[in-house]
């Protein structure tokens, strides 16, 4: 029992406390790649602390949804942190939900964020919500198909089971379907977490924003919660990508040594993906908004091919 609590606590701590570090790392690497010195990797912690101390200005025209959404976002992310096999293939609360539940936990947050964007009645919020919904609607089928590609492989939609099969049967990782599903999932992860070339997290131009436009009305502790949740979402997506597709180092048995190794492996894998994202964001420009369907339907095609290859390439 204590082991189980300990593992879940570690997972919560990794996601909750690691998220700002991950954001800081991506920003730092991007700055270095652009030839700038950039802020330190710990800067996001300072930013969150600053926001927490600031007064929250809430428009008089908003309803309870506006105030509720930040808490919901953080809650769904922390709950996801409990479900995802970050360290072991025996995540104690893993039985609560499979990968489909996880995806819809994310989507619940997106849904409420879009509502909150509309809530204040500003032109930017509505614009952001409408764009976010368009992107979500395009990303959704890809997520499902990519999931089915992996679930078909192991005959199970349990995350633990998918990771365990990958970790024990390394030949599975060499199938073409695996690579295709990874690419599809990676593109969707970029779209879902608001990274380039879908959305530009560094822009100050309201008219071009997607995610940032929805949260433009937020300030103070509400904004801090939203930024924190966005960081956690990025971390969970990267952790999922690394453990589902590169399940090396994940503890198959729950021993302190194995969990320690799993922690180190997770940090390295997520760090490597973060550097990869920073490099990608340096190399690409933002896509024209109306070109997004092409990108996302491309990732849909990849996911579909992954499924097909699992059916035919046994």
């Amino acid at each position, binding site marked *: 029992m204590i082991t189980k609590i300990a593992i879940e606590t570690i997972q919560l701590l990794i996601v909750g406390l690691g998220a700002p570090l991950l954001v800081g790392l991506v920003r730092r690497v*991007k700055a270095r*790649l*652009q*030839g*700038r010195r950039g802020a330190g990797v710990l800067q996001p912690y300072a930013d969150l602390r600053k926001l927490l101390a600031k007064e929250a200005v809430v428009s008089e025209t908003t309803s309870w949804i506006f105030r509720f959404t930040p808490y919901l976002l953080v809650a769904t992310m922390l709950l996801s942190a409990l479900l995802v096999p970050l360290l072991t293939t025996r995540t104690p609360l893993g039985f609560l939900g499979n990968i489909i539940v996880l995806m819809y936990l994310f989507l619940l947050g997106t849904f409420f964020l879009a509502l909150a964007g509309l809530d204040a009645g500003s*032109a*930017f919020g509505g*614009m952001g919500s409408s764009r976010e919904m368009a992107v979500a609607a395009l990303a959704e089928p890809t997520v499902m198909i990519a999931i089915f590609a992996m679930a078909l492989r192991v005959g199970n939609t349990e995350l633990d089971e998918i990771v365990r099969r990958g970790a024990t049967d390394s030949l599975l990782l060499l199938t073409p379907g695996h690579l295709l599903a990874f690419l599809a999932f990676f593109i969707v992860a970029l779209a879902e977490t608001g990274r*380039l*070339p879908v959305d*530009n997290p*560094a*822009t*100050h*131009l*309201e*008219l*071009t924003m997607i995610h940032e436009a929805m949260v433009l009305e937020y300030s103070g502790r509400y904004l801090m919660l939203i930024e924190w949740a966005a960081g956690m979402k990025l971390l969970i997506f990267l952790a999922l990508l690394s453990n589902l597709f590169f399940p090396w180092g994940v503890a198959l048995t729950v021993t302190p040594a194995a969990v320690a190794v799993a922690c180190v492996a997770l940090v390295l894998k997520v760090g490597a993906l973060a550097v990869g994202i920073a490099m990608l964001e*340096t*190399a*690409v*420009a*933002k*896509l*024209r*908004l*109306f*070109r997004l369907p092409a990108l996302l339907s491309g990732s849909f095609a990849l996911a579909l091919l992954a499924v097909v290859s699992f059916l035919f390439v046994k």
Partner: protein
Amino acid sequence: MPWTRRSGFLGFPVPDLNGVARQLRATTLKLTDLQTCPPREVRVGVHRDTLVPFAEYVRGRFGARPELIVAEDTRAACGTFTLRYLFELDGVDLFVVASVAVPEDDRRFPSLATRWYLASRFEREIHDLFGLIPTDHPDLRRLPLHQFWPAAYHPLLKDAPSPPAFADDGTPFPFRRVEGEGIHEITVGPVHAGIIEPGHFRFSVEGETIVNLETRLYFVHKGIERLFETIPPERAVELAERISGDSSVAHALAFCQALESTAALQIPRRAAYLRVVLLELERLYNHIADVGAICTDTGFAVANAHAMRLREDLLRLNARLADHRLLRGTLIAGGVTCDLTAEQIADVRETVQRVTDEFDDIVTIALDNSLVLDRLHGTGRLPKQTARELQVVGLAARASGIDRDARRDHPFAAYADLPLRVPVYSEGDVWARLMVRVEEAREAANLIMRALDGLPEGKISAPLPPLPAGASGFGLVEGWRGPIWHWLVAGEDNRLARVKIKDPSFANWPAIHYAILKNIVPDFPLVNKSFNLSYAGNDL
């Protein structure tokens, strides 16, 4: 790009100053006081009632366009208001300056608004600031003054009292409304994210597609033209430098040239060459910064990071040359204040060469990126016809196929000795405006080198004689955005009776309304940045 030679308008032989004067004299338009002011001006008095036929005549005969319309409150001197119309002749370095008297007791004058769009905006400005009424003007909504200004208060009248106490009463500006199924209005500004100036943008969109855009500017209208009338001409150069910060040299130079033209002063040759160096240094740092900023707006931040580094190198070079990063304090009427030593010249050469080499690398990296190119091509297209009709100027005009550059067409400083390549693109999109900047930046570096090569020895300034009361003149400078005009009238006791400024932004702001049509909302910042117009220079 070929060296371009201009032929006369519509195949007419290229007219000269006396030829223009002779042809005007031969008309039946009741012209008065016709005089030639060599080397390039014909001045003529036109009666109010014959202004429209006169304008039609010079348009038809010389392809002339009114590029500047100035109102002057000359009631104390001659009992009437005076309007000045500066017509620029097509393809030749000549100007016709028409003066029109408007009596005090009947403050109406005929409108040219339906013939030239730009004239309609000058007339709205005159209507607000002087209370003169352009008859048959199709759109007399307010321009520089916002709705809450008292209706009868015209701040540029000489007898205007101190402004009465008033505050914004919330009266809305009568925007054009687009109505229909699914049309949505997005209002942006006047306060924006980032460190830019204030301006209000009102988009009517259908989904993400923009079907109409109206801008409301003049939030930083600060009465700068009136301010010139209160300070001595020597101090006024400092004020001119502050009209639009990124064009400090260009505005100061236009003002100095207006003073020199009014006082009929020739500047030393060395000063003329140094002015070229200063103006091109300003062009270089602005163009490099703009290329970076356009890349940022496509999300390609790496190009911007390096462009900003190069801009900083150039600003530090400026500081080493002139003790001011924006080169303020370098120009005075009659010449320049900072001479360049041999070490400084070597410093300029070395820095400019290194910066332009690295700039070429940045441009290559950015333009090799197909995602960046995809954002630039076809975005914010301003057709040549529209650009012509709006009298768009400067780099925006050259990107839309209009081959004009005041440095070549109306040489000032030492440009007559330094022939230059004028890049012209026909696409009119963001890419074309970027390419014009890239090529002009290279040409600016080239001009700096050649001006330093040919730098004559001698004095760097000549003393400015007192201005003859009532004399007037203008300065025309091709700044990095486009041509800057300063019209100046000397008053009693060596003071300035009137200064009128035209920044290229004034002519180019309406172009954005047309360039953005049928584009999508998230592309607006990119289109806007590709014009990069000044709010301060427009609002005055």
